[in-house]
């Protein structure tokens, strides 16, 4: 009974965090561009040489190389924004199909109060109990699998970074 609400709420929270990070990255990018413009002006005036650093990785498309990758001490890793994007995709994609299943069983209706479990106090109690047990377990399992996947991917990228550094 509406246990899917928990992964959806988690997905919304993760998406909000991702949006905040995107705004932060944009501000940072604009600041770097502004600084670079100032530096370029100085180069033109003084004739000094400038150096530009670019993060490169074959796993990511050209457009995302600056935003999705970061230096993490030993090498190149996955940014927090990219990780959160993965988690929100993971949560929302499963939730879409589960919402359909709940709609099929008549647990979600297209009119107020939208959840049949919210019609009477007894049903509400059952619904909340299911959310706190099944829903929370679903969200935890998805988050756990995402954490393991991110850990493995991070290690892989770090190894690739180290390999590239040793070749250079």
């Amino acid at each position, binding site marked *: 009974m509406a*246990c*899917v609400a928990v*992964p959806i709420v988690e997905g919304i929270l993760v998406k909000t965090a991702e949006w905040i990070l995107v705004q932060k990255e944009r501000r940072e990018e604009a600041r770097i561009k502004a600084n670079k413009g100032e530096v370029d002006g100085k180069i033109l005036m003084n004739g000094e040489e400038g150096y530009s650093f670019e993060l490169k990785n074959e796993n990511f498309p050209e457009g995302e190389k600056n935003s999705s990758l970061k230096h993490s001490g030993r090498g190149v890793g996955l940014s927090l924004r990219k990780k959160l994007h993965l988690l929100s*995709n*993971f*949560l929302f*994609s*499963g*939730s*879409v*199909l*589960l919402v*359909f*299943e709940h709609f*099929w069983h008549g647990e979600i209706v297209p009119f107020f109060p939208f959840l049949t479990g919210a019609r009477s106090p007894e049903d509400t109690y059952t619904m909340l109990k299911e959310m706190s*047990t*099944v829903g929370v*377990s*679903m969200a935890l*399992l*998805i988050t756990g*699998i995402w954490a393991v996947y991110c850990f493995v991917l991070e290690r892989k990228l770090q190894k690739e970074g180290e390999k590239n550094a040793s070749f250079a």
Partner: protein
Amino acid sequence: MHLLLSVFATEWSFSRFLRDKNKEYAYHIPCLLFLSASLMWFVDSIFEYLEKGTEIFTPNLQDLVQDGFLGLSVIALGILIWQGKLFLNYLQKQKSSVPTSF
């Protein structure tokens, strides 16, 4: 039954995803959809097992058919979402390939 069908759909999409080296058909979308839904239904089944016991392994024919029909509908919805995304990608590609100036 819908859990089983969803697991089979995950297996199919994952095998296609591994074969699609150029990532031309975006197989990661059905893979993510069915994998995530399968995991959630798996948790649901565990709680159902704890509640009802081995009864869930011997459903009657009517429940089996209804659940199978639900599973097939879920797969159809997943495929529809994937195809929709592919179509949008195709339209974007077409739009970007049209020259804007002569």
